[in-house]
């Protein structure tokens, strides 16, 4: 009954209006979690773009960062629901690959947002920040700011094996002047200046613990690279407790509103801002285009990155925190 009446209604709609509803393209968005403001912003961007283009957006997320099976389940369910394009921020860049392949074999276009799959070519396309460049920018800034002083660096990283974590870390070292760094490597490089390397999972509490341990290991640390701003905030807390917050410079990547505020307050010296909203809206646009013309996108599209600081250094291009706050994600 239900079915027939629905079909009837549909055909009625199709007759009266132009058959927009029946052919409404469906785009699925799968983020790592749905609590992180970065992904909340991404979802907002996707929703706005879908509304503007008359597409239907489905969204889902893993339960925790690293929940690969959860992401696979969402992908299958969205494809069952008729999604022809899947936008995904892979929690596990390698583990998602066989499922992405299955989806693509079934004619679904899969676009990785923010984080690449490993290998990158496993997905149709990648819309993301150039994370190596994001690292290079803060590395160059730190180099200029330290002005040739001897440095002892602590790096607060993501977790082993993740390309985003490796690219930011390696970019930072390259920007700081290390030679022979491989921009494509998924392994963390180490230079003699780096005295402590710790995993933080991008988490504030873990960042604090990591920094405390690094200070135990080497109390003379004067430069901290952090994978993101929550980790940076944790590091600052640890430095403050140790009474060292004035003498240690923290640089970071992300550009979330909370992080930009920390740049303004002097907690973080400089950060590289990225643009999740743009990744998502571009993804939806590509999905709508694919539904209409069958044309797929491919390759890597850089969604841009900007160095933010209120203490600019000569020779290093940057914008101030006012620009950062205008373009940030999360609660302003």
């Amino acid at each position: 009954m239900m079915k027939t009446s629905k079909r009837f209604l549909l055909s009625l709609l199709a007759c009266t209006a132009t058959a927009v509803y029946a052919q409404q393209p469906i785009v699925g968005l799968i983020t790592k979690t749905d609590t992180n403001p970065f992904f909340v912003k991404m979802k907002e961007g996707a929703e706005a773009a879908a509304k503007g283009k008359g597409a239907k957006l489905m969204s889902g997320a893993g339960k925790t960062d690293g929940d690969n099976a959860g992401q696979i389940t969402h992908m299958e369910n969205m494809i069952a629901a008729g999604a022809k394009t899947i936008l995904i921020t892979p929690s596990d860049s390698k583990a998602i690959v066989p499922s992405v392949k299955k989806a693509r074999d079934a004619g679904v276009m899969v676009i990785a947002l923010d984080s690449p799959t490993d290998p990158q070519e496993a997905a149709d396309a990648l819309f993301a920040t150039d994370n190596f460049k994001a690292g290079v920018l803060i590395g160059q800034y730190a180099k200029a700011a330290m002005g040739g002083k001897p440095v002892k660096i602590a790096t607060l990283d993501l977790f082993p094996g993740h390309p985003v974590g490796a690219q930011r870390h390696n970019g930072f070292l390259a920007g700081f002047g290390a030679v022979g760094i491989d921009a494509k490597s998924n392994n963390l490089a180490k230079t003699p200046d780096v005295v402590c390397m710790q995993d933080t999972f991008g988490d504030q509490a873990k960042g604090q613990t990591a920094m405390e341990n690094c200070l135990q290991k080497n109390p003379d640390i004067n430069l901290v690279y952090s994978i993101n701003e929550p980790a940076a905030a944790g590091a600052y807390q640890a430095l403050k407790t140790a009474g060292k917050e004035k003498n240690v410079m923290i640089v970071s990547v992300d550009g979330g509103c909370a992080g930009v505020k920390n740049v303004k307050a002097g907690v973080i010296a400089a950060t590289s801002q990225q643009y999740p909203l743009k990744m998502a809206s571009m993804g939806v646009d590509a999905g709508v285009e694919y539904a209409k013309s069958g044309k797929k996108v491919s390759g890597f599209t850089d969604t841009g990155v900007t160095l933010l600081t209120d203490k600019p250094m000569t020779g290093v291009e940057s914008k101030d925190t006012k620009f950062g706050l205008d373009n940030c994600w999360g609660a302003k």
Partner: protein
Amino acid sequence: MSSTPAAPARTPLRDMLEGMPPLATLGPVIALTIACAFFASQSDRFLTGQNFSLILQQVMVVGVLAIGQTLVILTAGIDLSCGMVMALGTIVMTKFTVDYGINAYLAIFCGLAVCAAFGFLNGALVTYVKLPPFIVTLGTLNIAFAITQIYSGSQTISGLPAALEFFGSTFKLGQTAVSYGTVLMLAMFLVTWYVLRETAPGRHVYALGNNPEATRLMGIKTNRQLIAIYTLAGFIYGIAGLLLVARTGVGDPNAGQTDNLDSITAVVLGGISLFGGRGIILGALIGAVIVGVFRNGLTLMGVASVYQILITGILVIVAVATDQLSRRKG
């Protein structure tokens, strides 16, 4: 607990199941039916064989974990380590084949053996050191997680041979593609159900959960029995690991982190009492499927995933409340 007489009588064992209030048994089935009817009315893609096959495929890992979890819970225990033990099993299986080039079947056997060994460790600590199962398995959860990370170097293992992916492949049943893993899960449920219901060792599982002292006085070697149950549960987690490998096509060291709670959720939704000694194992299957149906149905409706978690939470509380109320009545 007070409802069971302490005297070593035989009949209460059998009467227990038959005398169980119908609500606890039928509740999960009713909930599942209502949910299916609702989703069918909302999306014409829901009520298809292909979609149900998909749902079963999605719950097969947690479903098989729930079999082991049910065995432990029926003895009034709990196993928090199951997901991590499973993850360790998957890493052993995949690393042995991909990195060491060992024969796939031998590697699977080794993975199952490692999981069974962890189960044995759980059982031995519960019985001989007399530690509460919650604490023991909380400990082994962390140990298994750490070993998994150390042994794998936190790296995902891919490029698996076909033998490891067999249970993820499908065959046609009419129009519907059904995965072999689904068939294995259903078969395991049926066999365990039969053993628990019709054989002496199966009845002893219930007896242990109801009144361990009375069971011991009946002349059953309760310690040995308990260790055997935990070991078997570990072995079953290994099979869940094999299904996970087949489903995802990789060995993932970060897998299974919330699967302990997911399997307990399935058990509880299935009307199996967390206090031990009561419940039908097929309930755990229904419980796992309920979670899968909500996840799938709400996705088809376009509802965001956080609501799926919300609804699961409400269902769990309703299920436990039903169990508690029926217990008070009895």
